[in-house]
């Protein structure tokens, strides 16, 4: 055998040995282990980062330990891919043996995780994904949501707009499950209150960058208001193009509050002024908890906390308060979930509880209007719909 062959054989043997090692078990214990599966790469990477920072600040503020047990966060990148997310959660449960799971951001990933955590009976606390079914038809005792359901966000806007005199609207939303669920909930309460919907458009989620054709249809339909749902890059473009098209003078732009999220409202510039939004959190909410939260967050991370950060922050607080009720015991998962049902506290968003009928959060929903302020666009709360609670929607826990 030549030198080269021997080296290569050694390399092959080493590779095989590595493969064997790589699949071997590992263990450790003591602190409360929390498996965090969020996107740290891909389109939602910034959301995953915000939620993680909110979680860390939350555990710092309300922890750092409960009944002598510290918190250990084990983070995994879901890549916004359902299969990857599921495989990461299996790793967290089987290999790291986490006590609780937090995640994900996107509903398609949440759907992939649901059956697995349901079978394994490991509590999964969702800090963002809003699909109605997760706390509706497909609810599980082991899936708790601290963020929102899509319907919960938009349902309150229907009667409110009619009351303010906007009795005809045009609906426009990105063409995927979240867009349709938000519009369905709005449509139901809006028409029940006597408003009329005079047109609907669902542009493709990916690839729609030019909203011109849709804006032309809106212009022709002459509604008093538009109710929209877009997020991220699409929200930036839609708001800008709505203004450039000259629609802002005659038609009021309203929508689910992600249209002008603090994450990118400054990128939208003056086009973002005078927009009505509805959301579970805006940085300008006037209460002590929120002031303290924003101060701590800005001191630590140097920027305003968004609605995503607050969802992480409240998730951490829910976990801390529930575990302090069980005396730090995480072995009886059923008791942990029961304790979560008993927890209620005033967070930055206002009073929060977990609905024992659906495991969805019960929270205030805020209606706000944007106006240019001294340092960038301000999101001013003009009305608050208190304790919005979802109907069971086919959920039996």
């Amino acid at each position, binding site marked *: *055998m*030549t030198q*080269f*062959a021997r080296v*290569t*054989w050694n*390399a*092959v043997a080493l590779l*095989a040995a*590595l*493969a*064997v090692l*790589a*699949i*071997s*078990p590992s263990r450790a214990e003591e602190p409360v282990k929390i498996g965090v599966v969020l996107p*740290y*790469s891909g389109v939602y990477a910034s959301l995953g980062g915000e939620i993680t920072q909110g979680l860390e600040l939350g555990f710092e503020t309300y922890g750092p330990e409960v009944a002598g047990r510290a918190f250990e966060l084990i983070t*995994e*990148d879901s890549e916004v*891919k*359902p*299969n990857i997310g*599921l*495989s990461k959660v*299996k*790793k967290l449960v*089987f*290999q790291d043996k986490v006590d609780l799971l937090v995640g994900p951001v996107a*509903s*398609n990933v949440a*759907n*992939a995780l*649901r*059956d*697995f955590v349901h079978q394994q009976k490991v509590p999964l606390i969702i800090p963002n994904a809003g*699909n109605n*079914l997760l706390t509706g038809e497909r609810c599980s005792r082991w899936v708790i949501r601290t963020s929102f359901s899509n319907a919960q966000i938009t349902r309150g806007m229907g009667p409110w707009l009619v009351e303010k005199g906007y009795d005809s609207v045009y609906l426009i939303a990105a*063409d*995927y*499950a979240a867009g349709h669920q938000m519009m369905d909930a709005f449509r139901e309460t809006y028409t029940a209150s006597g408003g009329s919907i005079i047109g609907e458009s669902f542009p493709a*989620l990916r690839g729609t960058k030019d909203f011109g054709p849709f804006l032309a249809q809106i212009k022709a339909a002459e509604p008093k208001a538009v109710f929209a749902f877009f997020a991220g890059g699409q929200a930036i473009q839609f708001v800008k193009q709505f203004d450039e098209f000259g629609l802002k003078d005659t038609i009021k732009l309203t929508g689910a509050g992600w249209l002008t999220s603090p994450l990118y409202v400054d990128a939208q510039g003056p086009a973002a002024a005078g927009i009505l939004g509805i959301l579970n959190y805006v940085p300008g909410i006037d209460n002590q908890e929120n002031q303290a939260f924003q101060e701590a967050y800005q001191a630590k991370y140097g920027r305003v906390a968004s609605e995503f950060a607050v969802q992480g922050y409240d998730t951490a607080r829910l976990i801390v308060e529930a575990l302090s009720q069980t005396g730090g015991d995480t072995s009886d998962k059923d008791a942990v979930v029961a304790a979560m049902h008993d927890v209620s506290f005033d967070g930055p968003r206002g009073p929060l509880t977990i609905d024992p009928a659906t495991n969805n959060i019960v929270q205030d929903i805020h209606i706000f209007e944007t106006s240019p302020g001294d340092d960038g666009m301000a999101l001013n709360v003009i009305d608050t719909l208190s304790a919005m609670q979802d109907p069971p929607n086919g959920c039996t826990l």
Partner: protein
Amino acid sequence: MMSRETWRAGTAILLLVAALVSWVRADYFGHELLTQIAILAIFAMSLDLLAGFTGMISLGHAAFYGLGAYATAAFNLMLEWSPWAAMAGAVVVGAVAALIVGSFAVRLSGVFFIMVTLAVGEALHAYLFKSRAFGGDDGLSGIARPDTSSIGISFDDPAVFSLVCVGFACLIYALLELVVRSPFGRLLVAIHLNPSRVRALGCPVSRYKLAAFTLAGAIAALAGSLTAQHNAFISPELLTWTTSGEALIVVIVGGLGSLVGAAAGAGVMVLAMHHLSGVTDYWMFFMGLFFVGVVLFAGNGIYGVIDAVRRRLGGAAH
């Protein structure tokens, strides 16, 4: 000098032994990884038949993978077929779809073939992303694994299921090895090397390519079907062109036209992804570097290195 085929089979047996040793030593999660590796290996080997042997670089191979997963879900959840029947049905669906797509795609070559396969994959992805009946972007869940409680084992046990997937991977390897050793397989390689000459010899080139395309589609659908049962969940994500691209990377890292290299590449890919992503958020960057490194320095990937050993040994004997 040992023949190329014998050396390949020997490597395959070595891989199988490594897989079995891992299986014995692995915990729950290890079995999950092994399942992922086995399924990716099946998918990558089917692509290797196209890209490595026949010279058809497809960027839409995930369409058949995803179609297999969706067909399994549809047959199992909507028509309530048994998981075995759904799996068989999925393979048929994959084969038929590949036959249809292939009947026009195989007439093209080079960049045109790449573009057509890419377009077909993206079109199917766009359809499933919007289709309410198949769950749209939310996907479908609850796909069952075969019920084998009558013989006392449960496919829901990750240990059993991973072994089943490794078994499938071995079967597919054996099948493809038979195919590429047959006169049919030799002709595919000939078409790869010099299509004009093969045509001049009076051989219906397109029909041979179509047969390979159909077989690859059917095998990809089998991998998709196993994935659907493994995750009990499907979503349009399975059909994106990046899924095809990842499979192509696995084949290239493993070594084009070697079958067993694709399987080894699948192992490297899954393990590297799992371990790197635990270490750094920028793991994709390092995967990219690794890929560039392999292409630049390892010639024909992992199997290229293994095959070089064979040639050295042969050289030493003279």
